[in-house]
């Protein structure tokens, strides 16, 4: 009784934000990643794809960039161009930074830019 409901029940909850870093090649394939394996691979691919597109659009605009920072209300994406690919850092923005357990983890480039 209720077996189908148990099997296909949607769990309430909010999707977590990605945290960690990954390196991708020029085709957007992930080479290394520290993002939790439970995080949907499809979303990781979308991050890679969009980051590469922004770099590529900048090149098309004759203004190539070495680094980009995308700031959302709850996530910061820092990407550094790497021979056509990129290294991407993902930082969920916590409510109160002083309570953040791993606050010392800062992307070197972002820290250097002060952004």
């Amino acid at each position, binding site marked *: 009784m209720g077996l189908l409901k148990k099997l296909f029940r949607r769990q309430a909850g909010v999707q977590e934000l990605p945290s960690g870093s990954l390196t991708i090649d020029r085709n957007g394939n992930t080479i290394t990643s520290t993002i939790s394996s439970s995080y949907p691979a499809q979303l990781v691919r979308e991050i890679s794809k969009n980051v590469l597109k922004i770099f590529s659009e900048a090149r098309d605009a004759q203004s190539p*960039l070495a*680094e980009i920072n995308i700031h959302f*209300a709850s996530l910061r994406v820092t990407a550094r161009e790497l021979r056509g690919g990129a290294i991407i850092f993902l930082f969920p923005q916590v409510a109160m930074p002083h309570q953040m357990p791993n606050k010392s983890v800062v992307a070197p480039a972002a820290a250097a830019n002060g952004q």
Partner: protein
Amino acid sequence: MEERSSGADAGMENQSKILILDDEADWLEMCREMLVQLPSKPEVRTATSGAHAVAQLDAEQFRLLICDLKMPRIDGLQVLAIVRRRFPDLRTVVLTGLEDEEFRSRAYALGVDLFWLKTDMQQNMKMFLDCLESLLGRDMADGFRGIQNKSLMDIIQMECLSRNSTLLRLTRGPLIAKIWLQDGELIDAEVQGAHGETAFRKILYWKSGTFENLPAEPNHPRAIQKSVNALLLESAQSMDESEEQQTEIIEKTAHRKTVWRISLLTREGAEFVVALPPEGEPEAWGTQNVELHAKWARRSMELARQLGERLEAGPLSYIGGSCAERNVLVLNRDNKLFVVSWPPDKVDGQLLERTKKLVASWDS
């Protein structure tokens, strides 16, 4: 169950009483500690379920309800629907982590006074607390919050025809104006240090703003003797005449604006600025590469926005980019997209603040 006091006493009783509803006990405690520090020193109660909150509202009078949306059993929207029906005078604030425009629309449709995201609250704590303080302090006696698509002349005529006695408080950006009406007669006006007829004429030039009806001040001295209709007619004629002078003024303003922007660019030390209105041609200072920059900025913001939506990362604040030659920031302000480029030596940790400052004064 406590007995409610009535009339003015009740108003005083619930002046600074806040009820917070959220299913997370830790969050409730944090909010409670934060809210008791408001200047009006409110009494703060908490509830962890919709049923508990409604029971408390039944038992006591509150001034403000701060409500989460995502809760078990009775969700926030259901609570708000009940509250709207049973406690129409209660001010309501939605404080939620759900960054969904649909919920925002639904909450405002239920008549909430404020919809605030928890992430925004943490980023703009001061602004949030100011809003709450304002909601706590706002005079409930008489008054409504505004009428859309009505000109100021319409509003004044409406008040006069209704033979109302009221103090109209008008706000337009940082400017505040007051118009005193007594039994449908215009008795005084005040704006930017001007009084009487002069002030009233100045106020009529306002094209937009907000207004609220405050309680009448019957003892306010009369400074305007002319009838309101005569003054409205004179002002309308004067506005017609001044339209002819507008073209010349617009040209002068455009020239002044260009000079101002160039000097701003130089003073702040930015390399170039490209401003992209939602429609029409981009404006640019300091670069010939306008179309390419504009295209990149629009495309990048769109890509980033889409990414943010997919990741549920909240609204996009800005994009920063850097290379050996420059640092670029792309951000939205007042419906315009701005691309601001800074030389690499300008990286001093305050690039965002400097860009925001530059962009804020751009259309001044």
